[in-house]
């Protein structure tokens, strides 16, 4: 597992995540909103997708629903990383297959630990 698609609108967060994950041997692709992410998926599927919820043009939850429809047999997990902590967001992610919820602010260390664990076949849940 090498390729990760990060869907995030906040440039500083993209910058730090990209930097830290690349340092740990991951190949990072970035989309700034849901629409861009769908375009990137058209070009090729990642090994894992990390998305924010609150984004312009297309929000993260809408992106996930589109992926459910467009890629019903997807193998890559989705990690929803958001500062939106309302219960309904946890619920819809829990109801989706192979989808995980992680609340911001998230520790980069913890994130890398999770990704490494997944890469080694131990699953995403930290």
């Amino acid at each position, binding site marked *: 597992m090498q390729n990760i698609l990060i869907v995030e609108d906040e440039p500083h*967060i993209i910058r730090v995540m990209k930097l830290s994950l690349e340092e740990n041997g991951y190949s990072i692709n970035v989309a700034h909103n849901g629409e861009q992410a769908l375009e990137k998926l058209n070009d090729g599927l990642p090994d894992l997708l990390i998305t924010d919820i609150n984004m*312009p043009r297309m929000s993260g939850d809408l992106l996930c629903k589109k992926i459910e429809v467009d890629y019903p047999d997807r193998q890559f997990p989705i990690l929803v990383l958001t500062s939106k902590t309302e219960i309904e967001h946890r619920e819809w992610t829990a109801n989706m297959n192979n989808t995980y919820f992680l609340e911001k*602010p998230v520790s980069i260390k913890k994130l890398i630990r999770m990704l490494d664990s997944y890469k080694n076949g131990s699953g995403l849940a930290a």
Partner: protein
Amino acid sequence: MSKKNLNNVSTWVNQRIGFIVIFSSLLAVSAILYLLLNNMHATRIAQIRTQGIELARLISEIPYYQLVPNDGHRGTLELIKYNEGDPNFAYGAIVDKNGSLITSAAISGIIIPKLKPPADPSNWLAEKKLILESQNKHIIEFHAPLIEKGKLIGYARLGFHEPKFGFTLGQIPFLASISLPIFLIAALFLYLIKREIQPLKVAGIQINDLVNQGSFKQVDIRASGELSDFIQKFNEFVRLAQSRISELESNKNDLVASSKLLTYKQSKIESVLQALPEAVLVFDESGNVSFINSKVTSLLNIPADEILNNEISSWSSNPNVMKYINKIKNNPTSNYPAERIEFKPENSPDKSIAIKAFPLFSPKETKYVYGTLVLFQDVTEENLAKQARGEFVAHVAHELKTPLNVLAMYSETLQREEGQSAEFRAEAVNVIHDEVERISMLINNLLSITKIELGSLSLERQHVKLRDLLVDIFETNKRNGRAKELQFQIDVPKEMSPLYIDKDMLRIAINNLLTNAIKYSNKNGVVTLSAEQIDNSVYIKIRDTGIGISVEDQHYIFDKFYRSNDKETRERTGHGLGLSLANDIVKLHHGSLKVQSEKDKGSEFTIILENNSSMLERAV
């Protein structure tokens, strides 16, 4: 007979009492005279009968030869005729046993009728009534047998005129002497009656006058005896009636007064209920709607009549409302539902209406419940505000968390010593600084806007050199906006008279405008801050060449929490507070904030402040 007829008869009698007395006395005199004459007549007949029968018997005992006249010897009958002196004597006759006249004596004008003698010896001595038709005379005849030597030889017959009913001239003085006292007594009686009736008449007239006048007074008449008693009792009765009437009138006045008071009290309560800002409906004890104020009809958009005269099912089909209302109106003494319910009326589903019921306990006897007061509240605004508040809090939390996330990630990355270039460290420090600024600004904005809304913010004015303030704000923002590769321009005259303003507040306002100008600019755009003074007005302009604001949006941009649905606006973070706060601050300075904008060309915001002594005075 009706009362009116009785009265008429009584009046007729009163008016003709004199005639009645005279007529009555005449009747009495006539009756007395009739009885007297009748008695005299009967007595006379009895006298004649006694006399006749006795005389006939006497004659029958006289020897026959003495009865029959012969040779110059007048018969006994002649003697009787002349000596009887009885005015009723008619005739006397001696007849043989066959009835043939032997001798007779009669007064002139009388022809002795022929009679067949009675065959039966028991009828030989008898009397008989005869009518002499030819002479129109009524005769009572007495006959007796003449017996000589034991043999019937004939009869003696005596006839008397039957006395007539009536009186003779000679009797007039007697009869008059009897009639006169009766007339005198009648006259006396009439006088007495008149004398006794007079006060009654006066009383009657007085009472009649009082009745006609409609007044109710005592009667003033001097009377004696029983009439005096009667007048006294009548006046006593009038006195009682007067006191009873005045008592009733005073009761009536009390009633009218208390009824007016009740009406007044009711009107007062109704006016209070009408003046309430809420819609109020009142159920009485029996569960009928007894009152609604005008707000009910306007809130529910249902005519008052429909609510007042009908069951709830006719004006609301909402099952929750029906259940709630039926529960409270049918059991006014049972436990009331503590919670209120909310519903959306069928005819205006955009509205939210809350219902809450309150039992109307009697203030004196709390066990007694007069009914139920139901309050309808339009909670549409309240709900929208609640929703907006919730959304705002969520939004603010997100806005706060976003820079916190950046701070967390950068600081965590900095903690790792390995592999961090000096360049990254410098970048991290700058980002952390900027994000802290961002959080600080958001919090300041929130606090300021809250203070302004609560009215607890008072400006701390001081004389400020506008140029220094503007340059300071400009430089800070220029630093923040460099990532966008914008062109920053500032055009502020060096010499400007100091402004009497709250520096920190105005800094927030200008800062918000400048932050927006940067945020909504595109790459390579131009952001300009300028100021000028014309007469006593100072114009501070913040101009950009960014995405611009549509005409529709320009109406709402100063509303709190408003964010355009425009795609390009939504791409940029924001909390919808900046412009609202800037506008509030400028208004607090008695200035104005104007916007000029064209879509895709850019926007220009102008703060206009007055700089004269009047501003100082107002501030003081």
